[in-house]
């Protein structure tokens, strides 16, 4: 069982990874053909994953309805009803149909945008309560944040003409230097993780 659940997946992962790496660094025609085919499989599998995740979602919320989960079952029911409605419209008419586009632009878009916009209110409340100059580090963070915030809006320049100069220096020098370090560190970590995954030394296998 271990051979089926562990050794075969490790072998396949290693093989596919090696082909993709070989294709990137040694662009030989036979390797390119195999790599292109594997990439197409991956795209098809990803598309199919969307399909299977729909069933998983139905199963999860269907269970909540069957169990009459307190405070949840009617929300799950509504979610399933809306999802099936959108699927029915999309399948029956296509996603380009005016009814589908109307639902997308006037229901889904407005609700999603409203949910995202709520973050602004939470940020305002959190900033009022938590953004305090309690010590030197806090004060530096507070001042930097306010300068950068005012660099991004026209009123900043009207309040103090040097807001953009100082703000851009913080963004382009201090921020860029810090993020370069973070990105290089993350890239090295990703390479190490990738190698561990390819040789079966990372978790995730049975």
């Amino acid at each position: 069982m271990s051979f089926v659940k562990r050794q075969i997946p490790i072998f396949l992962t290693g093989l596919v990874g090696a082909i993709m790496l070989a294709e990137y660094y040694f662009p030989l025609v036979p390797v390119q053909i195999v790599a292109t085919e594997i990439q197409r499989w991956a795209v098809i599998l990803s598309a199919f994953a969307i399909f299977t995740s729909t069933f998983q979602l139905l199963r999860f919320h269907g269970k909540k309805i069957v169990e009459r989960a307190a405070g949840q079952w009617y929300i799950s029911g509504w979610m399933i009803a809306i999802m099936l409605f959108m699927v029915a419209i999309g399948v029956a008419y296509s996603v380009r149909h005016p009814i589908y586009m109307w639902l997308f632009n006037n229901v889904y878009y407005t609700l999603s945008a409203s949910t995202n916009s709520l973050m602004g209110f939470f940020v305002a409340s959190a900033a009022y309560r938590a953004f305090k100059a309690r010590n030197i580090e806090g004060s530096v963070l507070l001042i930097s944040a306010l300068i950068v915030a005012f660099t991004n809006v026209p009123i900043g320049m009207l309040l103090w003409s040097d807001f953009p100069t100082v703000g851009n220096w913080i963004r382009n020098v201090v921020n860029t230097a810090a993020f370069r370090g973070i990105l290089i560190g993350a890239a090295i970590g990703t390479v190490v993780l990738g190698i561990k995954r390819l040789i079966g030394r990372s978790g995730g296998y049975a």
Partner: protein
Amino acid sequence: MAKPDIWTRLQNVDARAIYAIIGLVIASFVLQPVVLPLPVSPGTRMLYDFINKLPPDSVVVMSEEHTVGFWPECGPGAVAVWQHAFQRPLKLIFVAFVQDGALMEHTALTTLIDKGNKKYGDDYVQIGFVAGEETGVAAFAKDFTMSKSDYYGTPLETLPLLKKARSAKDVALWVVTGSIGNYWVLRQVNAAYGVPQATVTMAAQEAIYLPYLSSGQFVGMLNSVRGGAEYENLLKRPGFGNQMMGALTVGTGAIFCLVIFGNIVYWMGRRRRK
């Protein structure tokens, strides 16, 4: 138990009062937009100049990589850049590696963009959604016709534009709208094929992508609504971005005032407790 003093009560003010202040301030400027002077950021100017300098018939790929909830933030910039590309003699390919992207592109192309005399299939194409995230980007970059049909169900092999532009090797610029897609395109297109990349991104992500702008991997970057408003001004077509800048400005101003007030309250309370 002693009654808390005014400073303690102000520190613990009901969140709904703060929501009301922010809501009122923003709503007033959304309903009555105020146009404020807006200098053009270097990243915006770089993308504008880059598109202006592209030779005629250059192929530009536009990919929409965010969920629809971020359209108010990224949409003004995306629409302004697409509009600029339509004004120039360029060949445009629209694609999305996030499901919502294809629908947003369709909405923008059919209702917001003035396409001039550009003809579908010859001058621009909408591929639609390509699944697979980063793998999808890699597969698409290798062969633009891997999806078989475009967003409208037309076989890609029959579209004249895709007979000329076969892969990322034929692309002069790739503009990503959103965030996560930038990394996919950076790794699978910019690094692999040397295609210049630009982005229209969210304000919270701008700091992350600045190193790519200064390294030259990005040839331009629009920062959120502000970037969109700047680009609209460069095109001399003020739109949604400019409308929202007033609200964004006063929203930031209100948060600034709240933070300052919160700090005064904190320090007064601390002094009193000592």
